[in-house]
């Protein structure tokens, strides 16, 4: 394909938007709430709150592992790409990591929209075939005795990882604990941040 006469991507996006508005197919501000939710409301801080509550409330954790969709909804997290959420609990013998090899699905209400690295062909191609090497490159070295499950988001289940609670956090509040849970920990390419 010759690329030198292709319009800049920003001009192409603006062309679609302006054509739809001028034809009356959509209102000028129709996309604003969607963009607001994508940029501001669906975020990994939500998933971090879910994890922190699971770490401190055994009954909530039991509900979360049994059926994560209503458990996340208890905290107000539900909506598109969160219709059926499954929580994956890390243990000393099993580490979980999430991918979507065919597009880039994530559980929007609790993980947010996927980050660039998660959407990259490199991550999508490699993590299913050589997960330990990928995790090593991303800074996570697992004991060879720990099993790894890579979860391919090929259908409508949306996953979130419940990382292990770091040592030395006894007595911490949910708010303090949530600070230790990054988006990468919810995907499984990092552990929860150690207590400092």
């Amino acid at each position, binding site marked *: *394909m010759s690329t030198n006469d*292709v*319009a*800049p*991507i*920003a*001009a*192409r*996006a*603006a*062309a*679609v938007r*302006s*054509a*739809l508005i001028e*034809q009356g*197919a959509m209102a000028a501000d129709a*996309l604003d709430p*969607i*963009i607001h939710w*994508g*940029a501001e409301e669906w*975020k990994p801080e939500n998933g971090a709150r879910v994890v922190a509550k699971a770490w401190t409330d055994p009954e909530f954790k039991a509900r979360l592992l049994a059926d994560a969709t209503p458990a996340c909804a208890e905290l107000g997290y539900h909506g*598109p790409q969160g219709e*059926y959420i*499954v929580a994956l609990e890390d243990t000393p013998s099993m580490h979980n990591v999430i*991918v979507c*090899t*065919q*597009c880039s699905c994530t559980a929007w209400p609790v993980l947010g*929209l996927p980050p*660039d*690295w998660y959407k*990259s*062909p*490199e991550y999508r*191609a*490699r993590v*299913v*075939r050589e*997960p*330990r090497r*990928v995790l090593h*490159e*991303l*800074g996570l070295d697992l004991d*060879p005795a*720990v*099993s*790894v*499950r*890579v*979860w*391919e*988001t*090929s*259908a*409508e*289940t949306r996953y979130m990882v419940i990382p292990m609670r770091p040592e030395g956090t006894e007595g911490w509040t949910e708010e303090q604990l949530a600070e230790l849970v990054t*988006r990468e920990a919810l995907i499984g390419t990092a552990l929860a941040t150690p207590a400092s």
Partner: protein
Amino acid sequence: MDGVHDLGGMHGFGPINYRPTTEAFHEEWQETAFGLMLGSVILLQNHTPDAYRHSVERMAPSHYFAVHYYERVLTGVTTLLVENGVLDHADLERRAGGRFPLAGPVADKPLADLTPQSEQRFNKGDVVKVKDFHPKGHTRAPRFCRGKQGRVLHVAPPFPFPDTSAHGGAQREEHTYHVEFTARELWGDNGTDNDFVVVDLWDSYLEGATA
């Protein structure tokens, strides 16, 4: 379709550009692309997420790999809007001031011959094998697990069957199963003993098997 989007397990890809970021969008056009992707649910009649995913899969491979995720989103959504007569391609190119590459057409006879399975056929612990099928249209059974045998970890609720949903077929829902494959089963000698891949697969992709 056995397309370039179906990346799982492909060789030749280098290091991951791992820069954990917090913002969802870096530029305004990316917001627009995302907004249109969700907004197209309202703009298009009989729209499904599967038709959208297939529109991205139909992009030329050289285009697919060369561009940012949200350019793929915009290309797919715009292709559907043009194919459905909501927008005019020539008008878009006039507005944009240059070429506006879209995805290629849907293949003739896009569906594989998979018998609908409205009832749950498998249970947790069952051994199953993924059928070795190769439809020209949309499917969500990744190539790397076709023909492979695994074990059901979990039964998920019924969801619309993507192969027919992407191509305007009658509403059809099937259970999906979280099927665990050993790395040895998928990758042979290159697999590690205690690595596993779990794939979420619709009922009619599967057949019963014995361990």
